[in-house]
């Protein structure tokens, strides 16, 4: 008996493992049945067709963005892909940027040797990838920098980015206006920032502080999360302990905002109003439904990736933007940060990313 038992036990264990494996493999599906096309693109199908979108010279656009680990970056990549697919004259080639600036740099070096007509990249860090921009421009390939600016003007042909400072200003102004409307003279304001050593986070905070200061207000407590849901929840849960009564909160990122909202619900706190950042679909829907503390979000839309691809195509084809007089695409475009509230949520919902 004792000799055979282990064998049988092992056999049974193996069987159970196989069964569990088969069962589990069946549940990795993420098909929701609904439409999965969340991309925000601007194509040929407009009511008033744009002369620029008519097929022109065939161009190859090289694209690189950090490996997406959260919604916003994922939306950047999918938007870029979807926008490129709108054009019959664009060949879209993409390299994964890996885990850090060094990995992205080496991935991009191989891209230079493939000689695309134009490179669109969202760098891990603009300063660290500045040298790559110079290298590519020197090799005669125009570089479109998406969102994380290069310090050196020679390193890019076009820089298109969101307005981080303006985002903070928009959030600060909204909160200040709401507080004044409610008659709160010295409001207690909290802030949940994103990854603190990114320049964009510092700019957002600077804008937020400036707007509040202009209204005689200031942030009582600021925590920095990691742009992930669980980090947002963790920071918020402690912030709520530090501020037993809070009037307003700005959370920099709607994806981490899922965790921030969860923490507020778990602590049963409803006395404050919350402003989000970026403009995710879930956040815009919550604002529209008006059943949570989230009353507003300030945009930092990943639709900029679609625009970057469109502009990269124009650069490669030597065309300008049709609404401008100039014959070439401008060198720098900074998108305005828009404020989404219950009143205009329906307009912005199609631009929300998931």
């Amino acid at each position: 008996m004792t000799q055979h038992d282990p064998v049988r036990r092992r056999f049974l264990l193996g069987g159970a493992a196989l069964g569990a494996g088969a069962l589990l493999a069946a549940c990795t599906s993420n098909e929701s049945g609904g439409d999965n096309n969340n991309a925000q693109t601007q194509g040929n199908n407009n009511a008033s067709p744009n002369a620029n979108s008519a097929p022109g010279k065939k161009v190859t656009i090289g694209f690189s963005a950090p490996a997406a680990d959260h919604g916003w970056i994922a939306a950047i990549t999918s938007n870029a892909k979807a926008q490129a697919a709108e054009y019959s004259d664009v060949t879209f080639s993409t390299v994964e940027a890996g885990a850090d600036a060094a990995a992205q740099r080496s991935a991009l070096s191989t891209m230079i040797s493939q000689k695309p007509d134009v490179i669109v990249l969202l760098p891990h860090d603009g300063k660290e990838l500045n040298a790559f921009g110079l290298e590519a421009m020197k090799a005669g390939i125009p570089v479109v920098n998406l969102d994380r600016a290069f310090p050196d003007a020679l390193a890019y042909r076009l820089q298109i980015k969101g307005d981080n400072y303006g985002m903070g200003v928009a959030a600060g102004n909204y909160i200040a206006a709401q507080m004044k409307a409610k008659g709160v003279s010295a409001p207690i304001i909290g802030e949940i920032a994103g990854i603190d050593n990114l320049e964009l986070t510092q700019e957002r905070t600077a804008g937020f502080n400036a707007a509040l200061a202009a209204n005689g207000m200031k942030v009582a407590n600021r925590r920095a999360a990691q742009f992930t849901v669980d980090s947002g929840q963790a920071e918020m849960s402690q912030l709520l302990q530090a501020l037993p009564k809070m009037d307003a909160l700005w959370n920099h990122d709607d994806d981490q905002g899922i965790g921030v909202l969860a923490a507020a619900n778990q602590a049963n706190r409803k006395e404050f109003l919350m402003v989000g950042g970026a403009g995710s679909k879930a956040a815009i829907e919550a604002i529209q439904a008006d059943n949570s503390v989230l009353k507003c979000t300030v945009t930092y839309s990943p639709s900029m990736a679609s625009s970057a691809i469109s502009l990269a195509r124009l650069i490669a084809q030597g065309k300008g933007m049709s609404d401008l007089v100039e014959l070439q695409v401008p060198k720098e475009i900074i998108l305005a940060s828009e404020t989404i509230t219950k009143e205009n949520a329906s307009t912005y919902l199609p631009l929300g990313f998931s």
Partner: protein
Amino acid sequence: MTGLPAQTAPAVKEALGGGPEPEGPRGNGWWKSDAGESTRRNLALIAVLAGLILIGIITKPDLYGQEGWWISNVWAILKLGSTVGVIAVGMTFVIIGGGIDLSVGAIIALAGVWSTTVATQEMGTFFMILTALTVGVGVGLINGFLISYGRLVPFIATLAMLVAARGLAAWISNKQTQQTDNRTINAIAAESFLGVPLLVWILGIVVLLGWVLLNRTTFGRRTVAIGGNVEAARLAGINVRLHTMMLYALAGLCCGIGAIMLTSIGTSAQAAMATNYELDAIAAVIIGGTLLSGGRGTIVGSLLGVVIFSTITNLFTLNALSSEVQNMVKGGIIVAAVLIQQFRFNSVSLFFKRNRVTAPS
């Protein structure tokens, strides 16, 4: 174990008794003194914790003075540490057994993402929990198999798993945040039972079971034996390979539980969840007095390590201090805790040595 010839028993005693370090499940007297040592270490940790709380009371008397705030803060601290606490229990076993598991954060992400796919969520709460636990144990078994039978160094095997599991999690989730509307799952982080948050219950139960498993079962004794001296343990008739594999499966199981907790806490799962949890768990275990080389450690110490870390986070938030200072302090505390423990150990043995040398003369 089963097929072992009876005549190895004397050899076992010889190996254990004759070894340079009198460690092992049946060694004479070591258990008593070691138990005393860990109690002393844990008391030191409790003193650190009390100091941190005291600093909190001194710097924020207005908050501590508020009705009911104090207890809510205790729950907030424990809830903050609950997930790391659960995986630290599994990590304690792995480290006592002479290994290391760098993949715990990645396993949480994989289990969390796998259990919140649309397909899994449709099958209901029970199946979500089952999926998280099965994925956790499964990945743990793969880790253990690679280490035990594939003879990979634990550091390398679990480092590979860290990368691979996050990759798979990102692939399954398509890099999206997967929210869950499942009320039962979401209630875990929101509800209390008998005034104690469910997360704290889970932490408490896991710690209790871990303590019993480590201190009151042969499984625990064998873990200590393997970590103390693999060769002696093998000669003692312990199936070292199978046991090591089980240790990683246990760590995986803890990650499965942690994945459910963290999913509930954030009402969602994503491939980037539980980032750096492996480092938090390892740091807590080391601060708790567990030897990184294995063979000694306590569950209570690991729990204290976790609670100290969340108390620091809480303390810094209460005083609105920035996270960079907080990280520096955390780093300092890791070094200080280990230094203090080393210093105490050395000075005690030095003291004895000196006495023995000076007494006859």
